């Protein structure tokens, strides 16, 4: 399975109103790649992810999942997606942590198939993985923001996806939980060769943990190995001409969102 293509984004552009939020974004990931997506606020990171999972209409460009075009890709459960700031709608909803995590199995199970006892066991296992098993019976709204975030990660993992897409998953998660979270990602990556796409603002941490970095500011400014990225970060000019690195645009520093 390793070496096969997990996702390919081809010349994707997007605008909400009259201004392009994304311009000609292209890249591809192999199964087992770990991509850190960075860029300043408003640079289009969430927009790109939402286009990739089909939450926004793909008008210009193409997205392929495991070789199939997004529109005809049926095995959607293979994509686990954790949105940015998912918390607000959950506060007043009368559902237990268990019920929420089981919702992650609905698409995979298919219509007219009850989740049954197996669904319960898998939900518990997924909660175990994110360290939330003790909260099985809690009402979702009674949890803190960080705990809710971890429940949503469990919901994304419960169907045993091949790729996990995380939009700033560690915002509101304490330091210890963040460490555990990265441990979890590495373990899943090792054990199931899970492909990971993760948005973060913490350049240091993400380039340490991910093997590939994509740098977005409406356009894709950098896409390549994270070690190269760290080396070149301060030396924009050199990076421009650096061998073996695909530097698409010279304005590399602008993508870090910090001088």
């Amino acid at each position, binding site marked *: 399975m390793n070496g096969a293509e997990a996702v390919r984004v081809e010349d994707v552009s997007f605008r909400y109103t009259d201004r392009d939020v994304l311009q000609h974004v292209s890249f591809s990931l192999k199964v087992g790649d770990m991509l850190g997506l960075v860029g300043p606020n408003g640079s289009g990171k969430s927009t790109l992810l939402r286009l990739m*999972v*089909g*939450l926004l209409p793909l008008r210009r460009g193409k997205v392929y999942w495991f070789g199939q075009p997004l529109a005809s890709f*049926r*095995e*959607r*459960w293979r*994509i686990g*997606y954790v*949105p940015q700031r*998912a918390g607000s*709608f*959950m506060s007043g*909803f*009368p*559902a*237990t942590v*268990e*019920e*929420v995590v*089981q*919702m*992650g199995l*609905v*698409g*995979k*199970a298919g*219509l*007219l198939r*009850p*989740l049954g006892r197996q669904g319960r066991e898998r939900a518990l296992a997924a909660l175990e993985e994110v360290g939330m098993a003790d909260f099985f*019976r809690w*009402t979702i709204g009674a949890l803190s923001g960080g705990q809710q975030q971890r429940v949503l990660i469990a*919901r994304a993992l419960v*169907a045993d996806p091949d790729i996990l897409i995380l939009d700033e998953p560690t915002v509101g998660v304490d330091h210890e939980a963040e460490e555990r979270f990265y441990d979890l990602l590495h373990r899943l990556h090792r054990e199931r060769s899970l492909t990971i796409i993760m948005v973060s603002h913490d350049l240091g941490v993400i380039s340490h943990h991910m093997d590939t970095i994509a740098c977005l500011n409406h356009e894709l400014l950098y896409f390549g190995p994270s070690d190269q990225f760290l080396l070149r970060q301060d030396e924009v000019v050199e990076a421009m001409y650096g061998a073996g690195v695909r530097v698409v645009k010279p304005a590399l520093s602008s993508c870090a969102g910090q001088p």
Partner: protein
Amino acid sequence: MMELFWQYSFVRYAFLAGLLIGFIAPLVGSFVVVRRISIIADALAHVSLSGIALGFLLGSLWPLAGQVRPTYYGLFFAIAASLAIEKLRQTYRHFADLAIPIILSTGVGLGVVLIGLSRGVNIDLLGLLFGNILAVTPADLWRVVILGAVVLSVLALFYKELLAISFDEEAARVAGLPIGFLQALFSAMVAVVVMTAIQLVGILLVSALITIPVAAALRLAKSFRQLLLFSVLLAEMSVLLGLWVSFQLNLATGGTIVLASVLLFLGVLFWTRWREGVMA
């Protein structure tokens, strides 16, 4: 009371219809409330008025059209309106709260005009607006049984999908659930329940019957399953209490049932407040 029950068949029909409706209305109502679309039930009830009025009008013009009961015209209108509202909600996300009152007013306006046109036809307008449970016939009862069975089966078959889209529609979309189909199915179900419940409490109070027991259950429930359970219990208690009191004191039945549900709601509210106070 028991004598009444055994003596008069219409009292038995009233109780049976009330209990059946008290069972399905809060089940569908639970999804309606957590999706924050309570006002839709109200809109559908009002739209059904124009359907019913059209039914009477057509019946008075052509005897053949009169073979179909006006209620079915109402049901048809309500289903059409529910699909239209869902469509509008999807298309104009930010103006969803505008689309519903517009459809509601259109329904009432059209209903009033049509009723005006069918002058001379004997329409039980009061019964439509406030319910007329005592007029339930065995045929009505069968209709409630069949529609209730349909609603229950749909809920049982699509429970996990309906819960998933109610909780997080975007996640359901990413997971590849057939959102459009599920929304349409659910809307049609709301329309069916609204039409069924109109006979019990009338157009004006339908949404109260669908939402108030759920609002009370919301204060008590820790899970969605509990919400379903508690809201059914509270709705059935409202129906029984309302029917009994209205028979005893000769009050309007629909109104009494809804008042009973409000009373239970307040009881739950005070009780949970008090419990929180004790815990704190």
